[in-house]
C-alpha cells in the first residue's frame, strides 16, 4: 500500500485524474464550525469596536488623542505574534490548542473591558484582543485547509470568510440597537460581546475536532523515523525552508501588490472628499462593502478552484484598482455603490484565496507558518502603503493620489502575474494528464 507524505497529498493524487469540476463538492463540517466560531468572534469584536470611541469619550470622559498614540505599537506586535503562533501550530502538529489560546485571550479581554476605567486598562485590553487575533488566524486557516477537499480549497475558505463577514456586519448593528434600547448601555454591549465570545470559544472547544496537520512520521513511507517504539516523531519545521520554497514567489507577489493596497478606509475618505456624503455614513460604507464581500466569497472561491487561485488573487487586485479610479473621479451615489461592489469583490477575491494559495504550496507540515507568513507580508506592506499614501494625499490631494494608485496597481498586476504564474500551478492542474 502506498502511503504518501500527507493526507492532503494522498487525496490530491487520488483526485489527480479528475479536474476540480468533476469532484463533487462537500462542505466540511469543520470548516462550517470554524466559520461559526469566526462569526461569533467577529460579532463580539466588531460590536465593541463600533462603540468604543463613544464609550471612551462619552462614558469614561477621556479624549481619543492618547488612543491614537498606542495604536501603531499594537499593529507591530500582532504581526510578530501571528508568525510565532503559526510556527507553534506546525511544530506541535496541533493547531486547535493554539487557536483556542487566541480566541480565549480575546474572550478574557472582553471580561477586562467590563472593569476597565482608565486609559491604560483600555489600551491593554485592546492590545490583548489584537494579540489574540494574531495568534488564532494562521492555526485556524491551517485547520480549514487540512479539513477541506484540496480541489475545493478556495471555495472552503470562501465559506469561512462569508460566515466571518456576516459576523463583522451583525456586530456594529447589534451594538447600536442595544444603545438605542438602553441609552448609555455600553456595558450591555460588552456583556453581549462577552457572551458571543464565550459561545465562539465553546463551539471551537466542543465541536471542532482536534485535528492533526500531518500524519505521524512513523506512518509515512520513506521518511526517516526517529522513534523506534512507534511513537510519532516530530519533523522539525524550519522557518527558513518555509520562506525559501515556492511560497517565496507568493510572498513576493503579495508583498508587491500590498505596497499599493491602501485599504478601504482611504477609498471611503476619497469618496467623502467629493462632498456628497456626510461623515456619519462612514460606518455604513463598511457595511456595504462587507455585504458584497460575503455574497461573493463563495462564488469567487469556486472560480479560483476551477481556474487558478494565484490568478484570481492577482486579478482581484484589478477590482481594487478600479475602485481607486472611481473613488478618485467622482463621489455621486451610483459611483459610491460601484466602488463598494468593487471593494467587496477585491476582498472576496483575495482574502480567503490568499490563505488557500499559501496553504496549498507551503512545505509539508508547515501550512500554518506559510499562511501566517503570507498574511503578515500583506499586513506589513499595506501598513507601509497607508503611511506613504497619507503623505502623498496631503501633497497632491485625494483625486490624483487615488488615480495614481490605480495606475500603479494596474502596472504591478502583470509583474506579479509574471512572478507567480510559471512557478505556481494548481495542484489539480499539475496532476491532470
Amino acid at each position, binding site marked *: 500500500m502506498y502511503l504518501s507524505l500527507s493526507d492532503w497529498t494522498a487525496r490530491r493524487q487520488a483526485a489527480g485524474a479528475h479536474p476540480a469540476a468533476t469532484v463533487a463538492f462537500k462542505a466540511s463540517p469543520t470548516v462550517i464550525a470554524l466559520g461559526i466560531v469566526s462569526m461569533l468572534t467577529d460579532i463580539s469584536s*466588531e460590536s465593541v*469596536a*463600533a462603540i*468604543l*470611541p*463613544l464609550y471612551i*469619550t*462619552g*462614558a*469614561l*470622559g*477621556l*479624549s*481619543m*488623542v*492618547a*488612543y*491614537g*498614540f498606542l*495604536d501603531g505599537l499594537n*499593529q507591530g506586535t500582532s504581526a510578530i505574534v501571528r508568525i510565532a503562533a503559526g510556527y507553534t501550530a506546525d511544530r506541535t502538529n496541533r493547531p486547535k490548542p493554539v487557536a483556542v489560546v487566541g480566541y480565549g485571550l480575546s474572550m478574557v479581554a472582553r471580561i477586562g473591558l467590563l472593569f476597565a*476605567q*482608565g*486609559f491604560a486598562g483600555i*489600551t491593554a485590553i485592546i492590545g490583548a484582543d489584537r494579540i489574540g487575533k494574531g495568534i488564532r488566524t494562521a492555526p485556524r486557516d491551517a485547520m480549514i485547509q487540512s479539513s477541506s477537499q484540496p480541489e475545493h480549497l478556495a471555495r472552503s475558505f470562501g465559506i469561512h470568510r462569508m460566515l466571518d463577514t456576516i459576523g463583522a456586519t451583525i456586530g*456594529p*448593528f447589534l451594538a*447600536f440597537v442595544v444603545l*438605542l*434600547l*438602553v*441609552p448609555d*448601555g*455600553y*456595558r*450591555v454591549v460588552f*456583556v*453581549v460581546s462577552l*457572551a*458571543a465570545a*464565550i*459561545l465562539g470559544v*465553546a*463551539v471551537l472547544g*466542543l*465541536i471542532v475536532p482536534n485535528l492533526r496537520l500531518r500524519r505521524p512520521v512513523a506512518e509515512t513511507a520513506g521518511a526517516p523515523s526517529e522513534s523506534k517504539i512507534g511513537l510519532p516523531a516530530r519533523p522539525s519545521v524550519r522557518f527558513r525552508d518555509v520562506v525559501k520554497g515556492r511560497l517565496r514567489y507568493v510572498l513576493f507577489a503579495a508583498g508587491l501588490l500590498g505596497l499599493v493596497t491602501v*485599504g478601504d*478606509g482611504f477609498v471611503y475618505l476619497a469618496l467623502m472628499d467629493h462632498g456628497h456624503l*456626510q*461623515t*456619519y455614513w*462612514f*460606518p*455604513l460604507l*463598511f457595511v456595504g462593502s462587507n455585504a458584497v464581500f460575503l455574497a461573493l466569497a463563495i462564488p469567487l472561491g469556486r472560480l479560483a478552484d476551477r481556474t487558478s487561485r494565484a490568478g484570481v488573487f492577482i486579478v482581484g487586485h484589478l477590482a481594487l484598482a478600479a475602485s481607486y479610479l472611481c473613488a478618485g473621479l467622482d463621489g455621486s451615489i451610483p459611483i459610491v455603490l460601484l466602488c463598494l461592489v468593487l471593494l467587496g469583490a477585491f476582498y472576496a477575491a483575495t482574502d480567503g484565496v490568499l490563505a488557500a494559495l499559501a496553504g496549498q504550496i507551503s512545505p509539508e507540515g508547515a501550512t500554518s507558518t506559510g499562511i501566517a507568513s503570507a498574511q503578515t507580508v500583506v499586513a506589513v506592506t499595506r501598513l507601509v502603503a*497607508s503611511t506613504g499614501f*497619507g*503623505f502623498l*494625499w*496631503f501633497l497632491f490631494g485625494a483625486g490624483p493620489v487615488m488615480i495614481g494608485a490605480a495606475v500603479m496597481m494596474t502596472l504591478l498586476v502583470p509583474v506579479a502575474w509574471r512572478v507567480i504564474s510559471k512557478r505556481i500551478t494548481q495542484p489539480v492542474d499539475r496532476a491532470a494528464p
Partner: protein
Amino acid sequence: MTGQTQWSTRRVRWIALVAVAAIALAGSVIYALQAYQRYQDRSSGVSAASVTEQLPSGSRIVFRNTASGEGYGKIAAVPLDDPHGPRGLGDVACDRVYAAEGLVSCMRIIRGIPTTFETQILDSAGRQIQAWSLPGIPSRTRISNDGLVATTAFVTGHSYATNSFSTETTIRGTDGRDYGNLENFRMLINGSELTAIDRNVWGVTFASDDAFFATVASGGKTWLVSGSLQDKTLTSVVENAECPSISPDGTRVAFKKRRAGVGAVHWDIAVLDLAAGDETRIPLERSVDDQIEWLDNDTMLFGEPREGAVGDSDILSLRPVANAKPQLFIEHAWSPSVER
C-alpha cells in the same frame, strides 16, 4: 473507539454547547434588563444632587449634570456666588456644553443607526437658535466675546483596527460667519510650515475677536499655537501643550502637558505666562483629560471622571501655582463654563 462511545461523546459535547449558549443568552438578557432598569432609575429617579427646576440667571457656572437620577446629562447651572448650592436644571441634554455672551453651545450625540452628532446653539433661556451637524464625537467647545463658536469633534473610523482617528475643529458664528476647518489654516511650527498629512487641531480658546489659541498635533508631538482668524494662520508658541485656556485677564494660558516617559499617557497642568514666557508646571496625581476653564484669575476648573462610577464625574478647582492640589468644587458635574 467504538461507534457508540463516539456518538455519546458527541452528544455530551452538543449538550454542553447548548447549555453554554443558554447560559450566555440568558445572562445577556438578564443583564440588559437590569441595565434598562438602572437607566430608568438614573434618568427618572431622585437626583443624587440637590436640584431646582430653573436655571439661575446672571453670573453663573454652566455645566453638564452627571448626578444619577432625574436630569442626568442635562445642562445645569449654579450661581457664581453659590457654587456649592443646589443646581438649576435645564431641559436640554448635552455631552459637552459651554455658555458665554448669552449663548449656549451644546454638543450632543444622537443615538441611532447611524449614530449622528450635532451642535445646538441655544439662547440664555434654552431655546434653540441654530444647529449644525458634527462629523464625529463631541469633544471641546468655546464661545468668543463676539459670538463665534469653536467646536472640536473626534472623527473615528469604524473599527479600532484601522488606525484612523482625527479631530475636526471649526469656528463659525450664528450670523453666517464660517472660518471652516482650522486644519486648512497655514501652520508655522518653529518658523517652518507644517504640511504633514497627520496634522490635527483641537481645543480652541478665544483671546479676542481675532486672536485665539489652540493645539496642533503632528507626528506624535503637540504644540500650543496662537491663531489669527483674519490671517488664517496658526503659529507655534511652545511644544507639548494641549487644550489651552486663556485666563480672564489675558495674561496666562493654562494647558495639559504630557509627562515624559513611555507607558500610559499622563497629563499634568501647566500655566504659561505670555509676557514673561515662563511656564509653571503643576504635577498631578491623576492624569487630567479636559480643557481647563478659569473661575477667576487665581482659580482653574476642570472635570475629572469619578472613580468607580462610569458616566459620572466631578469638577475640581486648582490654583495656578506649582505645588497646588486639586479640590472638589462641584460634585457630579462635567464640562464647566463660567458666565460672568
